[in-house]
């Protein structure tokens, strides 16, 4: 605090006082108020030149808090000394009461200014410390705010208390080489003292402290405070300085104010993290359930996020104009992760016999077995009536069964000849116990066997495609916070195509964001390379990329992203981590990168 007389005898008021006094002083008398070398005011001739060493000059000191802050000097010609004395005494009293009043006023103002500082600090801190719900960001904001206001702080650290193992883990630090300094510090008995509450507040000479054995740290002063919120320990704040006697009571006051806000903010961040973790566990549970539902797609929901993340990272890192403006925030990454984990969540309502339909006649069982039974029945009946016309004989039926079994697999296209043969077989009859005749293949069985490609009929394909609608509807039911609002879009668009031929909404290029397109590519790549599907063995890398290249040319998937997928080497890195060695064959990228 500044202690100089001019602050307590403001020049304007001193001037007024001296002006009133001047005409009252006897001739030849002069008075002056000085603060050290500084002349503050006076009356009479030569007032400015007055010093206490001159003859017939006397002085009176002005004292504040035991400290001399200036003096009143007066020169009186000997002949009028007695006449002047009462005036001088009056002047001293006046000045002293002015100083006392001004001292009181300044003290009140000083307190008010300190309060304003504290209000401003609280306001700033409650904004900056509550801006984030990430513990590390809160802790960084705390350290930055403290360091910006106190020149004494060289290093700072926030330790988080882990209730499960009663351990204090280093969350974040500030200052040159701080991590390396705080790490050994955290193993010291001195730090233990901070944890136990034996050391709280300022220690301005660590080496001299009883809990400090063998001081070899660069820290010479510390200011530490526990971070408590709602009567619970959240963590510990440690500030350190390279000199002794570094911290002041003002530092402690400011730090205490901020620490209480920071503790609450950290606690909120921890609670938020706990909620987030729980939500993530639910997501993981759903992904596990979907993957577990079908042995064939096991791991799909866990591998698609990985491919999508790798491809998105490649897009962020890409320097070509294609992805120059593409940025991903931390919230975007979280959105993508949730979306990719849940992109198939609608499959929980899809019957597994459709998801995994291994053969055309599969429902809960493969009905080809029924057909075999019927054929055996026909054969028996033919053997009982060998003379009957129309009997086809064992050889015919064995071949018929082999043919039906082959058609049932769905591995090959049904040719017009095969179709005619199936229709012919369907018309053959078998008789039940009551002598009633039935067709060998009923209408529904025939329709299934006539599926031209794959094992799914139109109805079942619709059920499969419906899983995306279920995904979208399920995710729409989750009240995602604004920062995660794109989850539904990223997850629900993975079967849409740029050319508008995808499902379920036949979206086109303009409606499909880059992340949604990324998810589509990740989904296809994973599905094609997945270890085992009921209807086929896993594709090799070259065959997979061939198929995807065709899809890219046909406007099914984004060609720019597909090219990035190739030239960034994402496909290769993923393959090395997840594909069987025999799947990883040589790939000639020039074929695809040409366009």
């Amino acid at each position, binding site marked *: 605090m500044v202690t100089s007389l001019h602050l307590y005898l403001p020049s304007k008021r001193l001037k007024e006082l001296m002006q009133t006094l001047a005409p009252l002083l006897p001739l030849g008398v002069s008075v002056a108020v000085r603060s050290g070398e500084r002349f503050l005011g006076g009356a009479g001739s030569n007032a400015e030149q007055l010093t206490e060493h001159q003859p017939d000059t006397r002085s009176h000191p002005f004292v504040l808090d035991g400290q001399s802050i200036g003096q009143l000097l007066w020169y009186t010609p000997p002949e009028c000394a007695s006449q002047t004395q009462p005036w001088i005494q009056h002047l001293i009293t006046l000045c002293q009461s002015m100083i006392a009043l001004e001292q009181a*006023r300044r003290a009140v103002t000083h307190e008010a200014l300190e309060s304003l500082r504290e209000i401003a600090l609280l306001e700033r801190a409650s904004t900056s410390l509550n801006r984030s719900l990430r513990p590390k960001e809160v802790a960084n904001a705390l350290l930055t705010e403290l360091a910006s206001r106190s020149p004494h702080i060289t290093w700072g650290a926030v330790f988080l208390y882990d209730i499960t193992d009663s351990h204090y883990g280093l969350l974040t630090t500030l200052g040159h080489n701080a991590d390396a300094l705080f790490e050994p510090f955290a193993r010291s008995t001195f730090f233990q003292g901070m944890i136990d509450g034996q050391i709280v507040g300022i220690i301005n000479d660590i080496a001299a402290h009883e809990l400090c054995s063998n001081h070899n740290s660069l820290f010479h002063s510390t200011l530490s405070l526990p971070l408590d919120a709602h009567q619970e320990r959240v963590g510990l704040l440690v500030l350190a300085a390279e000199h002794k006697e570094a911290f002041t009571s003002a530092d402690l006051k400011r730090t205490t104010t901020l620490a209480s806000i920071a503790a609450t903010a950290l606690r909120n961040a921890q609670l938020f993290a706990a909620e987030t973790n729980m939500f993530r566990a639910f997501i993981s549970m759903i992904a596990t359930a979907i993957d577990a539902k079908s042995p064939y797609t096991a791991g799909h929901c866990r591998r698609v996020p990985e491919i999508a993340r790798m491809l998105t990272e490649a897009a962020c890192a890409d320097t070509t104009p294609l992805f120059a403006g593409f940025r991903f925030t931390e919230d975007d990454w979280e959105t993508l992760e949730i979306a990719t984990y849940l992109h198939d969540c609608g499959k929980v309502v899809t019957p597994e016999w459709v998801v995994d339909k291994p053969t055309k006649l599969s429902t809960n069982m493969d009905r080809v077995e029924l057909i075999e039974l019927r054929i055996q029945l026909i054969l028996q009946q033919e053997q009982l009536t060998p003379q009957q016309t129309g009997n086809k004989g064992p050889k015919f039926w064995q071949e018929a069964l082999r043919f039906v079994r082959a058609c049932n697999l769905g591995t090959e296209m049904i040719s017009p000849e095969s179709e005619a043969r199936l229709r012919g077989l369907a018309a053959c009859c078998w008789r039940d116990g009551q002598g009633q005749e039935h067709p060998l293949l009923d209408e529904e069985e025939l329709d299934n066997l006539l599926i031209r490609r794959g094992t799914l009929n139109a109805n079942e394909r619709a059920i499969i495609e419906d899983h995306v609608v279920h995904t979208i509807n399920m995710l729409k039911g989750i009240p995602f916070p604004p920062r995660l609002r794109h989850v539904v879009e990223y997850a629900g668009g993975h079967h849409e195509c740029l050319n508008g031929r995808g499902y379920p909404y036949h979206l086109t290029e303009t409606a499909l964001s880059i992340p949604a397109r990324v998810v589509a590519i990740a989904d296809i790549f994973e599905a094609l390379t997945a270890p085992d599907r009921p209807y086929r063995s896993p594709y090799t890398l070259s065959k997979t990329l061939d198929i995807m290249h065709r899809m890219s040319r046909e406007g099914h998937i984004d060609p720019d992203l597909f090219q990035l997928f190739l030239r960034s080497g994402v496909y290769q890195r993923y393959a090395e981590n997840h594909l069987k060695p025999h799947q990883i064959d040589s790939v000639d990228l020039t074929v695809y990168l040409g366009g």
Partner: protein
Amino acid sequence: MDTVVIVDDEVHIRSLLEQTLEELQEDYAFEIVTAANGGDGLAVVQRERPRLVFLDVMMPVMNGYDVCKAIRADASLNETRVVMLTAKGQEADRQRGLDVGVNHFMTKPFDPDEILKLAETILKS
């Protein structure tokens, strides 16, 4: 010597600002002159030609906008920086302040450290 002028009709605001600025007098030589209404404030500014003026908005005789307008009308005062002190919630009136040539705004209750930072930047320049 540089001068800093404080124009505010509230004595406690003058007092708080003055005592805040005194901290800078250790490092910078400047004089603080105060005025308790807009009219006096303008007269002081025209007489002292200060580097910096802290100007309240709502004041008797002449409001802060008119004072600032008058300051800006005087080309010889274009080195004078004007900091307008607005009450909380009056931030919307900033445009009006900008229109009359205010350089900076501070919200009351002010943060003494912000005042010091701003004043120092101006006095240093």
